[in-house]
């Protein structure tokens, strides 16, 4: 297992406020892993598969991807489908992060093999708690197959 740079958390989120809050919450939870914020699906795929602007990046799987569903260009479902369809990336834990449980894509997410599905809580305390728990779980407790 390559360790450089290790234990990366990828956050795919188009909404800057949500991204900022998520990052703040992770930091508040003393998560020290590097957090990579990608602003839409296209960027996320480029990053993960080391394409386009990230072609020079060494392909190292993040320890968890926090993925928003509703995004411009390529949405979260597509990103999830591609990640889970690729042998290289399908073992990356993906936590779908969405605004509401009304989401019609929830079922599809599970069919595609999402590892967790989280509704962003409205209340900041709850929200930061969820984010922290997630960060902790996936960065410390979960063991990814090598």
């Amino acid at each position, binding site marked *: 297992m390559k360790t450089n740079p290790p234990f990366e958390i990828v956050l795919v989120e188009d*909404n800057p*406020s949500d991204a900022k809050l998520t990052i*703040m919450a992770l930091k508040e939870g003393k998560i020290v892993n590097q957090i990579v914020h990608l602003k839409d699906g296209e960027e996320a795929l480029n990053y993960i598969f080391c394409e386009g602007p990230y072609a020079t990046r060494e392909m190292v799987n993040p320890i968890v991807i926090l993925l928003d569903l509703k995004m411009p260009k390529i949405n979260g479902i597509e990103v999830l489908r591609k990640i889970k369809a690729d042998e290289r990336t399908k073992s990356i834990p993906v936590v779908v992060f969405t*605004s509401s449980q*009304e*989401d019609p894509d929830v079922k599809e997410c599970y069919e595609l093999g999402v590892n967790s599905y989280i509704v*962003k809580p*409205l209340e*900041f305390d709850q*929200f930061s708690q969820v984010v922290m728990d997630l960060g902790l779980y996936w960065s410390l407790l979960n063991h990814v197959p090598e």
Partner: protein
Amino acid sequence: MKRLYDISIKYKLILMQVVTSFIVLSICCTFFVITDIKSYKNRKAESIQAIAQVLGSNSISAIQFLDTTSAIEKLSQLKVETDILNAEILDKSGNIFAIYTKEGYLPQYLKPPSDIDTFKEEFKDNQLFVYNKIMSNGEHIGFVALQVELTELKTIVNDKIRIAALLFIVGIVLALLISMIFQGGISTPILNLVQTMQTVTQSGNYSSRSPVKGTDEINTLSKVFNLMLEEIEKRETHIKQRSQELELANLKFYNLIQSAPDAIVTIDQKSTITNWNAEAVIMFGWSEKEAIGRRLTDTIIPEGYREPHERGIARFLNTGETKVMNKPIELVALKKDGTVFPIELKISSYTFSGQVIFIGFIRDIRERKQIEQKILSLNRELENKISELETSNKEMESFSYSVSHDLRAPIRAINGFSKVIEKQHSSQLDEEGKSLLHTIMGEAIRMGQLIDDLLAFSRLGKKEIEKSKVDMTDVVKEVVQEILKINEQNYHAKITVDNLPQAACDRGLIKQVFVNLIGNALKYSFQNPEPAIQVGSYSEKNTTVYYVRDNGVGFDMKFYNKLFGVFQRLHNPEDFSGTGIGLAIVKRIIVRHGGRVWAEGMVNKGATFYFSLPRE
């Protein structure tokens, strides 16, 4: 003159009897009269003969002595015999010796006949002539001749004829009477029989019977005739009954056909119309009189369809094959005025005496066609509407999704960053600033709640209702427990749950109804020092009504129409929290279950919320 054959048997019998009697009596009477006259004559002859003999013997001496005087004297003794007209004593050569003539009568020489033996009698002109030889010692000495008037004969003949006539009349009358009496025994039964036969023949009334009074041939004939009549009457009754039945059946059939809402037409196998009902008259414009006897082909089948029609009939008659029999088919028909219009036709057939008869039921389907067209276009419209609706539903869905996603994000941001300010920058804010920050956070949360409620409400519109038997008491108890768990403040409320009947409903949705109603009840009775909430039910018609009653602040009935509206609130949010969607959700759930919601309330006197569910 009446012929013998024309005379009634009654008179024939009488006549026969009378004529027979007449002949017999005539013969008898004649014989009787003749016999009587003859016997009288014999008697007379004998008595005169005796007188002659006596006279002869007495005259012997006078003759021998030629004593005329003595002879005359002897003769004059005959005066007593008043019927003796002439008495003569003659000598043996026939010369008158002495003569006696009755007074007033002319003497007449009575010449003895030459062939006389000892005596002789002769009847001539109602007179008797007796001649007697006078013998003396075997010697013929003279004759006695007597001429006697048969005066009695006339009387006797008259008497006898009178008696005979009387007997004759009595006999005839008796014969008449007897024949009249006995002829009845023969002629009456025959006449009765004849009478009965005539009655039956003339009136056709087979119920009359010839009287039977005995066992003789005529009565036997009557009896047999009666039996025959009885049999005929039975058959007659049967025939009458059958013909009545037939008439009724015909009448029924006719009326049935006439009053049918469809045109009913029958044709024979040559396509000639044999029946044409009232509806056919209306439908095709041909009167019954005009139509019957016409060929169907030329009457109601438009040109171009005639040939296939003929071919179809021919094929059916030859092979029994048919494509059109016994099922409704849609065709076009021709009206008398030339109009061609759509019809529905059903043909059936039956065979009678080797002839096939076709029955056609024809329905004018112009209206139906129009309606079908209309339905088609309406269906198309409806389909368009449905697809529009589906589109707008999809739009609505994506709208809801956007709402939930996009509206929540800024709220999350407002709330989140406010929290960050509170945590990390509160030292830079005064108390007023902190309070305002709290207000911002509270409002943001409320906004989020509103969005969630609105989404829940719209979700109800598309959610399928899954009905099952639900123990309502169980549901209510579950709800009460959950509510108490969430908010400990509710512990002091007294919640009574009656034994509620089961209902066929969607458990999850009905639970939501009770959550909202009981939640409201607790919320609005919170200010009451002794809140009391009752959940109960009762039956009404085909429904069960469930209710939740509280002793809270109640409401003013004049705002009743706002009670179940979306985001409609009757209370100030400062007094009671809430988004105003709870009752709208209750209403939507109950309406989707086929039930009804309503409420009663008074300001500060509590409120009762009812909902009904149909009983299955």
